[in-house]
């Protein structure tokens, strides 16, 4: 079939219109009563996603910046304090830097704050009276007046930027600091 014949055939066949069923109108009316048009938008549908996305993105960015600024502004001073209590007289001779066994570790609550407590015992003497407690807590924490007693403060810096309580690294550093302190100056003399 050549193009002219095809065109004539298509025109003769396709130009004839079919009548739509009139009862369609009642269906359209019913559907329209269910599907009332909503209020006219102030923006065309084409730009609607942008109108939603841009403020949302701006809010997210603003929120993220605010959070980062807030964290950096309220950065915790990570200087920790280590208190050594109940220093027995025998401590300078029995507790040495080389062999300082930590025999107990727990988190104590002092004035509602979590405080890491390490207990050391001199070699060969594990009586409660001979134990030395090392309390490690944040620099912002203040011991209640009655608890300071014979405690000695050993301040040190935490290597973490944000350290709210004594972390594992702080604990290790505190032990090193205290052990170095023991080595250089016997506790009984402090």
């Amino acid at each position: 079939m050549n193009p002219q014949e095809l065109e004539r055939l298509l025109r003769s066949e396709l130009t004839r219109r079919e009548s739509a069923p009139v009862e369609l109108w009642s269906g359209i009316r019913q559907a329209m009563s269910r599907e009332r048009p909503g209020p006219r938008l102030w923006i065309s549908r084409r730009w609607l996603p942008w109108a939603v996305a841009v403020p949302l993105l701006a809010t997210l960015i603003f929120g993220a910046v605010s959070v980062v600024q807030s964290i950096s502004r309220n950065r915790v001073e990570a200087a920790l304090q280590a208190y050594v209590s109940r220093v027995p007289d025998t401590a300078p001779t029995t507790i040495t830097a080389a062999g300082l066994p930590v025999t107990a570790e727990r988190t104590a609550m002092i004035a509602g704050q979590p405080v890491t407590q390490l207990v050391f015992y001199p070699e060969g003497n594990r009586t409660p009276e001979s134990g030395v407690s090392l309390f490690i807590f944040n620099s912002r924490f203040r011991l209640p007046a009655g608890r300071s007693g014979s405690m000695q403060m050993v301040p040190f810096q935490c290597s973490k930027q944000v350290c709210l309580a004594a972390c594992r690294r702080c604990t290790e550093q505190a032990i090193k600091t205290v052990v170095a302190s023991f080595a250089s100056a016997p506790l009984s003399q402090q």
Partner: protein
Amino acid sequence: MTTASVEPSLSRVAEGRGADDPESAFLLFTSYKDRVYSFALRFVGDKTRAADITQDVFVKLLTRLGDYRGDSRFETWLYRIVANACIDDLRRAKRWLPWLATENHPALAANGDFAYQRIENRQRSEAVQRAISNLSPSLRAPILLRYMEDLSYEEIGEVLSISPGTVASRLNRAHRALAKQLDGFREGF
């Protein structure tokens, strides 16, 4: 119905009173219903689905008439809605009703004066419909817009959001496919 008689109802419906002004909405429906239905019927080849498409198109048309900004002909905007509705329907049918064969509806057969002529006309109509149904939707839409609605390449391109060059290319491919399938039929067969 001439375009001039439709325009007043169109403007009244476009003012947002389409849903509340049954008279003008009905005038719009009666003006375009046969065009929409015929296009859908040729496109999907099934009377029930064509009726459903027509209903959907008019519901969309009357509820979203406010979106028509008049920067193109109303018919172009209408055909865009119809073509998209037909393509969506084919896609849905392909997904949900893969076993559904295209119906060769007797309504498409011409009414001849004589029995033999009626049979021949019917055979020819069915062959044309079958050939059109075998085209892919991307080729079917330009053919129907060209021969049913007599749109120019530019108008077809506007309806289908493609360039006139692409319209020409698709029409050319559709012509070759149709010529191959309708080789046994001649105009005035």
